[in-house]
Each structure stands twice: as C-alpha cells, then as structure tokens.
C-alpha cells in the first residue's frame, strides 16, 4: 500500500479529513521553504504539495504567480528541490510529498526524471498542463516507479471524461472548485457539493478540493463533501511577507493559519 493510501485510510478510521498544503520550493529561498514544510508537517498537515517554480505559471492567480517569481530569483533546480524533499522524507517517511508544477520543468530532466523521482522518494506528481489525453506514456513510466499521477477534475470536465480519468488515476483526485485561476474567490454552492459527491460515488479514490480555500469556514464546508482540502494562495501570501531576520515570526503565523484550518475541518 502506498503512503498516500495509508494516510487516507488512517484518516478515514478516525473519521477525519485531510489537510493538504501547497507552498513553492525556493520561496522565499530553498532553505526557508524546507523549514516551512517541516513546520507544516509538525503542525499535523497530512500531505505536502511542493510547488515547482515556473517562468510561465498559466494556471495561477496573482498570489502564487508572485511566489513563483520570488522562487525563480533563487535559481534552484528541480533536482535540488527533489533532494530537499528526500531530506524531509528521511525524517518524516509517513508524510506524502507531491510535486506540483508544469510539464516543461518536468520534461527538462528527460528520461532521468522517473529514476530521480523514485530515488528521492517522491510520492506523486500533479502536472497542471498535462491533461488526460496527453499523459498515457508518461503515466506508465511514473507508475513503473511507484509514483502516483494525481489527476485534476474541473467543473467543466464532462461525465465521459471523468470516467476515463478515474480509470487511470491513483493516489487521490484533485477537484478544482471553480472556473478560474488559483486563489480566486470561491462561492460554495450546492452544485459544487453535489458534483463532488457524484464523483465520489464513481470511485474508491479519495477526492480533495482545492482552489480558493482560504479560511476555516470554507475548509469546513468543503470537507463535508470531500476527503480533504488543499490550501495554497493563503499560505503563499503569508510567505510573501517573509523578512530574513523574522523567519520565526513567519512560521508562527503559518502555524496559526494551519491550526485554524485544522480546527475547521475536524
């Protein structure tokens, strides 16, 4: 059983929902982003999504775009990000680390990508601009190495496509809560809740909801119909306030955001 599966199984036993964070590797710098992730884990975050900075983050709203820009200034490589993940993983083997990014950065490692993912104990990948139709070959190579390809489903995904996506998914499913970029205003509706519930009926995989979840109340509502929530822009905004001598304060502030959200979904 994969580590991702175990996490959701344990949560289910305790009747709890997953809290998943998204923060960008290298924002504000590689060392501090590692500390931020370690702090998330010690505060009880269940799964860590590690953003890979890209020069053209097309799916991101203003907050996360700025985060990518900050991270890019540090000239870090995908390999150094994976090495950071391995260090964290050695201390926290039971917390899944999932890389989230754009296809072009992953392609830069060519065929080495798959071995590197395995050697650095990466649990899964989310590739924003790799839809189902383009992913067949890539998926096989990932699954050969025991790495999950986490799929996205959006409000515009047709029923027919959902069935196909479900048939080739592993790990968990990421339901995009809204039509828009990350960090947009989320209006919770019955439609959204019904849709997640409908998809849940069709699959055994856990479904998490992300995009636009910024407070405990929204997190709570979204956790009712799903298996967990992803929080990104809210954290990346906070990380944007980083000042070199006040790293502790940043992590304290992040801690209080996390505990509020945890409280919201429990």
């Amino acid at each position, binding site marked *: 059983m994969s580590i991702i599966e175990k996490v959701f199984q344990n949560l289910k036993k305790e009747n709890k929902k997953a809290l998943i964070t998204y923060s960008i590797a290298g924002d504000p710098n590689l060392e501090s982003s590692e500390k931020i992730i370690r702090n998330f884990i010690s505060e009880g975050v269940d799964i860590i999504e590690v953003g890979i900075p890209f*020069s*053209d983050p097309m*799916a991101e709203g203003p907050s996360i775009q700025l985060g990518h820009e900050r991270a*890019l200034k540090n000239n870090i490589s*995908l390999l150094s990000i994976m090495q950071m993940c391995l260090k964290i993983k050695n201390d926290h083997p039971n917390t899944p680390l999932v890389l989230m990014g*754009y296809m072009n950065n992953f392609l830069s490692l060519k065929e080495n990508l798959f071995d590197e993912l395995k050697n650095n104990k990466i649990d899964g990948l989310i590739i924003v601009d790799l*839809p189902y139709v383009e992913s067949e070959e890539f998926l096989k190579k990932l699954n050969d190495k025991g790495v999950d390809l986490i799929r996205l489903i959006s409000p*515009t995904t047709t029923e027919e496509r959902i069935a196909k996506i479900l048939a080739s998914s592993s790990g968990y499913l990421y339901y995009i809560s809204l039509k828009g970029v990350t960090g*947009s205003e989320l209006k919770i509706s019955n439609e959204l809740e019904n849709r997640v519930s409908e998809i849940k009926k069709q699959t055994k995989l856990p479904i998490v909801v992300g995009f636009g979840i910024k407070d405990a109340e929204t997190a709570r509502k979204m956790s009712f119909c799903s298996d967990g929530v992803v929080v990104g822009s809210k954290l990346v905004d906070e990380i944007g306030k980083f000042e070199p001598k006040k790293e502790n304060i940043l992590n304290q502030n992040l801690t209080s955001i996390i505990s509020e959200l945890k409280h919201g979904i429990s």
Partner: protein
Amino acid sequence: MSKENYDFPDKDGRFGEFGGKYVSETLISALDELEHTYKKVIEDKSFLEEVKNDLETFVGRPSPLYFAQRWTENLGGAKIYLKREDLNHTGAHKINNTVGQVLLAKKMGKKRIIAETGAGQHGVATAAVAARHGLECIIFMGEEDIERQSPNVYRMKLLGATVCAVDSGTKTLKDAMNEAMRDWVTNVDDTHYIIGSVAGPHPYPQIVRDFNSIVGIELKDQSRELFGRYPDKIIACVGGGSNAMGIFYPFLKDNSVDLIGVEAGGSGVESGKHAAPLSDGSVGVLHGMKTYLMQDQEGQILSTHSVSAGLDYPGVGPEHSYLKDTGRVVYEAATDEEALDSFHDLTKTEGIMPALETAHALAFAKKIAPGLDNEEIIVINLSGRGDKDMANVAKVEGLTL
C-alpha cells in the same frame, strides 16, 4: 513530401511529435467544443460563403501580387514580388484569421472575445471584427509592447476594445498569452479566445493556418496567371508563424518551391539575445503545445529580444517545428539591424513601408537575391504595413518625432 502523406494535424492534434493540447483540465471542454464546431462549419457551405464574403468586402481580398521592380534592379538578381497583405483592412494578415474566428465564436454562442497581442496588429484585427459583430472585446498586451506600439493601442480603444496592460514576467507577447489563458479559464462559458497565431493548443494551430491559407491559395492562382508557374522561393517572417503557414501551406506538396521562414535574430543568434527558437532552441511545452522553445536547462522560458514586438516570442507554432525537422521548410534568422535596414530600403525604393516583423523576411531576401539568376522568382509575404512602427524606428535610431 506528397499530398498523400501530409495530413496534419492528426486526430490528437499533432504534427509528428509536436502540438497537442497541454492545458489545464478546465479548458479541455472549451477546446473540444471549438474543435467540434470547427469540423462542422468547414463542411457548411453557408458558413464558408460568409467567410468568403467578409474577406472580399470587409478585408478587401484578394490582395495583389506586386512586382518590386526598383528593389529588384537595385539588388541585381532574382525578381522579387510582394504578396500585399499590408493592404488588407487593419493593415496585416492577422485579419484573415479574426474574420473567420469571430464567426466561429458566434456559432458557439459566445458573447465575449479575448485575444493577446504583441505588435497590436492581431489586437486591432480582433477589435475590428468584435466591433462589427457587436461583441465585447478584451485585448491583453504586455506593458513593453504597449509602449513600443502605442498607435495600435489607441486604435484598439477607438474600436471599442478594452486593452489590459500585462506587467507580469517579461511584459511582452508570451505574458499577454498567459494572461489571456487566465481570463479564458475564468470566463470559459461565455468567452471565445481568438489566438492570433498558429500557436497554442489544438485546434488553434490548424484553425489559424486554415484561415490564413487564403494567402497561399491566392498566390497559386496569381503566379500561374502572372508567371505561368509557381515561384522558386517563398519567404515569410516567423513569430508564432501564422503569415508563414498561411502562404506556405498550399505549397507544401509542391517540392519545386523553396519555402523559407525567417525568425527574429535580434542582436544575432550567437549573442543569445534573439527570438529564434527554431534556429537556436530546444523542444518543450508552453502555451498548450509541444514545440521548439527558447528555454534554459531547467525548462524555464528565456526572455527574448527583438526590435519587432510581433516576433518577440520564445515559442513557435508546432507545425513549423515539424516542418523544420522534416526539412520541408528552411528556417533562417535576420538581425534587428538587417531588418531595420530593409525597412528603409523598401520604404525608399518602392514607396511601401513594411512592418518591422515583415522586414525580417525582406532582409533575408536581400541577402540571397543578388546571388540568384534573374529568371528566378522570389515571393515575399508582405505581412503588414509599418505605420505602427514609425515611433519605434525613430526611437531605435535616436530620433524623436
């Protein structure tokens, strides 16, 4: 390459390994809808008739094939002809595409049109068709381009469009395209995104090529009539590659015709400061397509440099990547300096002021024409007129208007 084995894109939207649909899941249904609608309308006689009528009465087609006699004599070699896309309404080939796409948008019931623009020609061509059909129109344009192409910004506003300044990334065409994609993902239900080149996810490279192919189709007729044969060489500038694809496509299977695309060489391809991904790039994925890109080893897109805003783009349409690899089209680069030089040449000897984009194609013709026999015929796609560039040329040359 014969007609039988050139049938691209394939059913997955690929030109060999290039192309595809690398977009976020939210956009897939919109692309599927577009593909489906497009397949239907190109079989629909009344739709095709409407496009034809608009091309004749709104755009002013066919565009003439003009003999550049004085320039030919000055260069002393091959005969140079110009396919006068600069005479189209709004001053460039871009309108061939927007006239068709706006009708597609109406077929799909979309009320809102968005587009990216670099030089502003595609923005103007989009704003014009949106005005004519009474549709809301938003144009995304990088801040740097707004500055260097200011006459076009005002034209778009006069045409009723909202121009959104894009200040992210390099503040040029690629960033305008990112921002347009972000808008589209947010307003996907009522909005059609008119991409301005043969770039982006499938089916855009195909649609934009097909709508621009009128240029090559007319050229076939005109050259049969004028020369009794096809030209020996056809030259076009390549930004995203729409004017080039439009004039090349009908000739792909005519192997006697050399097809040459000219990229923006900026300060020189060796300098690294250019916008020539086919001359000096590597394969990657950006803006929904697999294609040649200017990128670093980590897959970060590099900032580009060109005196011409319309060529200042780190990628290129996927069909060009395929045609480069198969060798059917040869790709060259012209520097800023060579382009400016040809801009002046044509203006002074023929009384035709070309766009700076187009001047790159002229520059390559200038290089090769003197070495060719005077029986040889070169046709250059004169993709647009240069009025928009006057202030920028003056500035580059240290003058103020």
